[in-house]
């Protein structure tokens, strides 16, 4: 097999998606600059441009963009590939990272002329690390490269949790790290078994050869179990609330909006592209049952939280639970291919709209805490006057979580609900409705308190920069705009699906 030595391949943008953020983080590290945001922001802007161009190209050509590293064909070499889903997700990640970066200038911009300080340097390098990691997770087609991508994600995310350095955040970071490492090693064992069984780790090649035998089931079971721990699916969610609540607001936003989605995306890939068809019904039902448990248990826990950030963090576990409802819904649908079913489309839309809504919510929670000096929900009286735009953004994002029109979460949840009804999965339909009601409960609790009169003797709220409030609002706006999508499977997400090169 000669490597195909073709000149100037057009998938070279995929390389830039991986390399630009890496180069940026190396540059910040080596320059020891006093103002790392001056490197990070342009890099994230360029990353956004690259992601958008890739997404447009994929849509324009109607084909997946691929790139073979070093010209080596799989199974020997590694392929990067942007199908419709991957392209949409790298664009989503790049957009959220960029807006978060604009917001984070308020937290981590350093003084001109000073020497390098810890928090800005660490935050901006790791934010770029996350960008590399997410782009790799969404684009790589090789199960071991995906392992390295997951490690990139872990190593970028964990130190962000304990950036502040308090005892509680350090403990939360350590617990996160232990869960993430346990997840990685289970995933790695699965990779080893798959290589032993098929002699390839390329997803497209595996798609064609996997058999429904014991080795494959055990390998995929271990990998999915490991990824479940990383995606904080009930009952493996214990690490998430303290970690996401303890991180600084911009880091929480990225962790909740994007980082927990990466392992779910990989489960989706394993389930639809690697696992032998048809997938076992019992496994799909189990995943959905755990998802339903996440929704119900963690929504109730969110209702009972006294702190705003912890409430938002518990809501993340609940909202990620919705994603796992997809598996039995797709199996129960009559669509010829998964991505033509409304269950699958609803799941993807839930992923994207939750990402925007939750990023907006955490950033809003950060501004509210900055303005009020605390984030105790019961004492939020007067917040609506102090930071009206943030409260508005919080409420708009909340619409998406509840699944009320006209938010993106509404379209997603209606699709999931319809799929549940059509496939006669009544318990799933009931869970979706109950989850929406519970979400309404915890969102309105905050909004209600925010419009109350300020408590006597409370210190006057501090002002926050308008540009940061607008950044928050823009994310909530995107979550809202997604609500105007038609209630049907999108051709775009189906581009290049099926694991075929």
């Amino acid at each position, binding site marked *: 097999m000669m490597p195909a030595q073709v000149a100037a391949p057009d998938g070279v943008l995929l390389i830039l998606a991986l390399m630009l953020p890496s180069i940026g983080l190396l540059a910040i590290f080596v320059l020891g600059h006093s103002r790392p945001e001056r490197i990070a922001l342009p890099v994230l802007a360029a990353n956004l441009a690259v992601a958008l161009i890739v997404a447009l190209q994929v849509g324009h050509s109607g084909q997946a963009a691929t790139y073979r590293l070093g010209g080596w064909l799989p199974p020997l070499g590694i392929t990067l590939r942007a199908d419709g889903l991957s392209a949409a997700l790298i664009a989503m990640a790049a957009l959220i990272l960029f807006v978060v970066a604009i917001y984070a200038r308020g937290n981590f911009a350093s003084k001109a002329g000073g*020497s390098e300080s810890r928090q800005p340097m660490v935050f901006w390098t790791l934010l770029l690390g996350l960008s590399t990691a997410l782009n790799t997770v969404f684009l790589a087609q090789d199960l071991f*490269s995906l392992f*390295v991508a997951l490690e990139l994600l872990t190593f970028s995310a964990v130190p962000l949790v304990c950036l502040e350095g308090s005892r509680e955040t350090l403990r939360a970071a350590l617990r996160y790290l232990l869960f993430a490492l346990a997840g990685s090693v289970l995933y790695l064992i699965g990779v080893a078994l798959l290589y032993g069984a098929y002699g390839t780790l390329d997803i497209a090649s595996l798609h064609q050869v996997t058999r429904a035998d014991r080795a494959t089931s055990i390998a995929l079971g271990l990998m999915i179990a490991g990824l479940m721990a990383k995606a904080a699916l009930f009952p493996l969610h214990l690490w998430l609330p303290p970690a996401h609540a303890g991180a600084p607001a911009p880091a929480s936003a990225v962790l909740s909006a994007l980082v927990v989605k990466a392992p779910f995306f990989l489960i989706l890939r394993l389930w639809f592209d690697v696992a032998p068809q048809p997938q076992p019904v019992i496994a799909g039902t189990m995943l959905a049952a755990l998802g339903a448990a996440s929704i119900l248990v963690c929504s109730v826990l969110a209702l009972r939280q006294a702190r705003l950030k912890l409430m938002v963090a518990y809501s993340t576990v609940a909202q990620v639970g919705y994603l796992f409802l997809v598996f039995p819904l797709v199996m129960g649908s009559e669509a010829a291919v998964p991505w033509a079913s409304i269950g699958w489309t609803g799941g993807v839309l839930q992923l994207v709209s939750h990402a925007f809504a939750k990023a907006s919510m955490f950033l809003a929670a950060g501004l509210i805490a900055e303005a009020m000096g605390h984030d105790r929900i019961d004492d939020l009286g007067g917040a609506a006057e102090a930071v009206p735009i943030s409260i508005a953004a919080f409420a708009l994002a909340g619409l998406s979580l509840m699944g009320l029109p006209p938010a993106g979460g509404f379209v997603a949840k209606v699709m999931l609900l319809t799929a549940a009804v059509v496939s006669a999965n009544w318990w799933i339909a009931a869970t979706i409705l109950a989850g929406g009601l519970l979400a309404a409960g915890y969102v309105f609790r905050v909004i209600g308190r925010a419009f109350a009169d300020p408590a006597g003797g409370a210190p006057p709220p501090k002002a926050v920069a308008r540009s940061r409030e607008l950044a928050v609002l823009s994310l909530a706006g995107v979550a809202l705009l997604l609500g105007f999508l038609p209630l049907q499977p999108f051709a775009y997400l189906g581009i290049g699906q099926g694991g075929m090169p």
Partner: protein
Amino acid sequence: MSLLVDLVLVALILMAAVWTVLVRDRRDAVIAFIVLGLLLSLVWMRLYAVDVALTEAAVGGGATGLVLLRACARLLPVEAEGRLPGPGTQIAAGLLSAIAAAGLAAVVLSPPVPYPSLAALAAENIHQVGLGNPVTAVLLAYRSLDTLLEKVVLVLAVIGVWALTPDAFWGGAPGSLKSKHASGALDLLARVLPPFGIVVGIYLVWNGADHPGGTFQGGTVLAAMWLLMMMADLADPPEIRLKRLRRLVVFGPAVFIAAGFAGIFMSGWFLSYPPDYAKPIIVAVEAALALSIAVILGLLVAGPAAEPPKR
């Protein structure tokens, strides 16, 4: 006879593993783990994976063991040994682990026929990169993206460890690795060994193109020499703000990325090498990487800064 050796080795490994988990004292557990690492490098020799054996001995047993032992020493006064959970949890944990092990054993006992392998493909293409060591060909050519991304992981790990520096000490040096008790033997070792170690490290990198060896193995030996000198107080841990230090960390990954982009112009693909120059480019990249790996491993062992920067 040959299988007897394997049986004895497996028995020793299982003993070390059980000891690692069950022994009460934390330090004993670490020592058992280091013994396990050395036994495992023998296993890798038995599996004819010499490159892995070298890496396991150097990184898996050596560097990991050093990090864990240092942790034990510093944890000693502070942390109480934890209380184990009740018998119910223990039995459940045992059952779960036993089921996992049994499932994996079942997979091992029913291998596919014929056994799949990429050895033939790797052999067919190795002339294009001009290397004699197929493992190096995989790491630096066929699957070079993994190796490149893993370098980014290492840099992120350094940043992650440094992120744990208390704010007042940012820019300063990690805590001294020096032993509390002066030792003539250690001092002598740290003076005599490094010249040999550096030669061995360079040899391993150079040799890695065609024979077992390579960047990690060589880089780890170099790191070990640096750490030895720090432990004997012949070298101070460097201040983390130093530009020179940061350049050394980034040097390898930067050269690798640059070679990758050069590949686009020279032979069409990112991380491809023009056949005539493949070997010199790969050896140059490996040399740069080995230097950075040595520094990074040393920094990871040394830990976050523990004193304020000097004026």
